[in-house]
């Protein structure tokens, strides 16, 4: 019964969506406030119905109702409750429902908190948002209905893919989707502006918080996915340049560019057409990502779908929205009044450079991801584009970008003084040089690029800090004054600094993990001790245990560092009889920012077990950097000038704000 109610709620959501997609947009054309006013209540109603549908599906999973096909295929009565809940979206149908749920959340947020938007803009934005929603409701209802019943209900489910039976599934997809799908709002704003044929700095001010919100979630989602893959796949890799990962990286790169160009548009009323194009491209890349992951065109852990009708349906949505929006752009963009050009040496100029690099970097990732698919479709030739390609394209371009990052915030708007900024970055450069020299001395041999990468990371951190030091007058004025000034700085300035420092932190982590780590793959018997990087691992013994829906072989290692006992690590291998598959539960031990990583292989005839043992220095910085970046995003979002729905400040108070 509950499944039917959920199904019905989804159909109702689609019909509300149809009203929202047409009536307010028509109202905006006719300038009819009543029709335009329908946008907000329908968006909130739609949200209510989708939430109901989603909760109905969750209920089916929690109750292990195996008469529902997707529950039967992806759940098991013996699974812990948390996995019963998360398996709701651990499959194609459920994850698409999560997709539209998040789309509806963003629509409802605009409806609820967009009271300061002009009514025409709001009506058009919500209308466009609903075009996307209706397309995906149709997709779900016609090709991927999660509520379908099986005639003869089986007694037991086929269990969730063991790799997905992990807390990561509770966090990673929702965060990633909040990011991915969040960019639908900036897309809707862009299309609304094109429909209206009018865009100004105020538009950018309304768009930027949404872009920032989506970007913050996407950053966290990507980092979470990376960490999940790192600990769950059992061999310590944290990024594989897999098309599925690239699918999330592409909108991230474009979205980062969008954040920066919207800044120029807000502050200087320039780059209007470009910002609109970026908003379209970012969401288009989100759609391409959805297509890559959901259509089954790739085969990997994320590609749940193997049904070609779904692939063609998503491809149709993709073509319709990307083709349609780009055509609309080509037709309407010339109507938008161009902003002025500006001096190349200025903050605007630096942000344009940032955009150039981010967009070309994004372009290389798009190419590397789609080229094998296109080549195979056209010629039948099968190739794989792997890490070496991306190391040669993404890495140098991104390094060049990072070299330019500290200049941006230090340059003045309109006309900057490059020499002056270079002088102000002297301290940062000096720190970098010391870092390079120390790394060279400690490393001895090794790749030449490594010390320079370390220098780059230090320079980036010090460069971001330079801005704050200068603006607070730290080192020049008494500490108390500096502290007061620091409090007075706009949150967005702090946000910028944190985001840039986070980038450097991630870079440091990547250098540490890839260049200074150690790895051993050996076979050990109980009683043996093996060592890596002054850590000694003693295999005490192995035990077999029974879990709720798996059997587990665990090996117990006591770990010593320089003779001192520092703990016990217990990697295990789980066998899931319901699926006949094994998973690897690696044991991790953090030592500062470094981690020891231990995972099990097979047991051989003589009773020795194969193990993978890694020492990974600075590895935690990779994800910590992303968290710092996201924190920067959140800080910037909390800046009162951007606060969603904040009442317009009175004139007097506005004048009191710190000068930007």
């Amino acid at each position, binding site marked *: 019964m509950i499944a039917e109610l959920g199904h019905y709620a989804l159909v109702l959501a689609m019909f509300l969506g149809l009203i929202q997609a047409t009536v307010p947009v028509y109202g905006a054309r006719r300038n009819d406030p009543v029709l335009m006013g329908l946008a907000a209540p329908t968006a909130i109603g739609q949200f209510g119905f989708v939430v109901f549908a989603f909760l109905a599906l969750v209920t089916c999973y929690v109750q292990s109702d195996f008469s529902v096909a997707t529950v039967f295929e992806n759940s098991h009565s013996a699974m812990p409750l948390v996995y019963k809940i998360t398996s709701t979206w651990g*499959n194609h149908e459920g994850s698409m429902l999560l997709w539209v749920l998040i789309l509806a959340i963003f629509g409802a947020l605009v409806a609820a908190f967009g009271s300061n938007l002009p009514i025409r803009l709001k009506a058009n934005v919500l209308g466009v948002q609903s075009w996307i929603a209706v397309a995906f409701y149709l997709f779900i209802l016609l090709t991927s209905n999660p509520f379908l019943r099986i005639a003869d209900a089986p007694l037991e489910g086929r269990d969730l893919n063991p790799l997905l039976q992990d807390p990561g599934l509770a966090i990673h997809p929702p965060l990633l989707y909040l990011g991915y799908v969040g960019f639908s709002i900036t897309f809707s704003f862009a299309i609304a502006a094109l429909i209206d044929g009018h865009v100004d700095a105020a538009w950018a001010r309304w768009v930027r918080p949404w872009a920032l919100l989506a970007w913050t979630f996407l950053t966290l989602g990507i980092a979470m996915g990376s960490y999940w893959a790192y600990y769950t796949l059992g061999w310590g890799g944290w990024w594989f340049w897999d098309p599925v990962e690239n699918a999330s990286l592409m909108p991230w790169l474009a979205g980062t560019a969008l954040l920066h160009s919207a800044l120029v548009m807000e502050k200087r009323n320039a780059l209007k057409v470009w910002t609109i194009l970026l908003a379209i491209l970012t969401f288009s890349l989100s759609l391409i990502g959805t297509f890559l992951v959901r259509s089954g065109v790739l*085969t990997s852990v994320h590609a749940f779908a193997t049904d070609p009708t779904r692939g063609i349906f998503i491809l149709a949505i993709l073509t319709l929205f990307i083709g349609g929006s780009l055509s609309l752009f080509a037709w309407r963009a010339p109507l938008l009044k161009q902003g002025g050009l500006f001096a190349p040496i200025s903050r605007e100029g630096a942000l344009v450079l940032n955009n150039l690099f981010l967009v*070309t970097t994004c372009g290389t990732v798009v190419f590397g991801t789609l080229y094998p698919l296109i080549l195979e479709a056209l010629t039948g030739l*099968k190739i794989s584009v792997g890490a070496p390609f991306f190391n040669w394209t993404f890495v*140098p371009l991104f390094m060049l970008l990072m070299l330019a990052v500290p200049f941006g915030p230090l340059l003045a708007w309109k006309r900057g003084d490059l020499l002056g900024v270079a002088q102000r970055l002297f301290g940062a450069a000096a720190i970098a040089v010391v870092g390079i020299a120390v790394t060279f001395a400690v490393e001895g041999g090794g790749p030449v690029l490594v010390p320079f990468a370390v220098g780059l990371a230090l320079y980036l951190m010090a460069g971001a800090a330079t801005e704050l030091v200068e603006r607070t007058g730290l080192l020049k004025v008494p500490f108390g004054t500096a502290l007061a000034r620091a409090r007075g700085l706009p949150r967005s300035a702090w946000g910028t600094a944190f985001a840039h420092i986070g980038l450097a932190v991630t870079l440091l982590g990547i250098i540490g993990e890839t260049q200074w780590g150690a790895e051993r793959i*050996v076979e050990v018997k109980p009683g043996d001790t093996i060592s890596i990087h002054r850590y000694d691992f003693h295999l005490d013994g192995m035990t077999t245990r029974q879990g709720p829906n798996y059997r587990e072989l665990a090996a117990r290692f006591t770990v010593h560092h320089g003779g001192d006992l520092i703990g016990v690590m217990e990697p295990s291998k789980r066998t899931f009889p319901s699926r006949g598959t094994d998973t690897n539960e690696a044991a991790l031990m953090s030592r500062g920012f470094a981690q020891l990583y231990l995972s099990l292989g097979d047991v051989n005839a003589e009773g020795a077990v*194969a193990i993978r043992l890694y020492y990974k220095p600075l590895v935690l910085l990779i994800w910590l950097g992303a968290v710092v970046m996201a924190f920067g995003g959140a800080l910037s979002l909390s800046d009162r000038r951007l606060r969603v729905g904040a009442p317009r400040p009175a004139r007097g108070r506005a004048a009191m704000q710190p000068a930007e």
Partner: protein
Amino acid sequence: MTRKKRRLVLIGSGLGVAALALGLVLYGLSGGIRFFDSPTDIVEKHVAPGTRVRLGGMVKEGSVVHGSNLAVRFEVTDGANSIPVSYQGILPDLFREGQGVVTDGVVEPDGFKADAVLAKHDENYMPKAVANVLKRPPADGGTASTERTP
């Protein structure tokens, strides 16, 4: 600076970055891609020893031989031809005889030396590449699992 000059700087730097990216992409393509071959491709195309490729197919039943020190030998087959593969390391959890496998490595005069083994399957699913090799459509929509060893 005149408007025209400013526009020139903008276009110039755009083209500069694009040219740099294009150069890097071409360079990356020359060394960063692998061809995906079946055992029959390798036999028929007479792939020269020393070439890096991805070899995909099924692990031949009864062909897996474990040696000492984590060395392992097995044969990858597509039904028509099979290629002996040697590998040293831990095989992925999902590696089984009679199941699909993708190996990354170098063609040698007497076989294939893999430096990475990827098993992509569950009980009723076969990766697309392997399915293509075997000229058999994949079975019904099971869940794909990816696993790698470095």
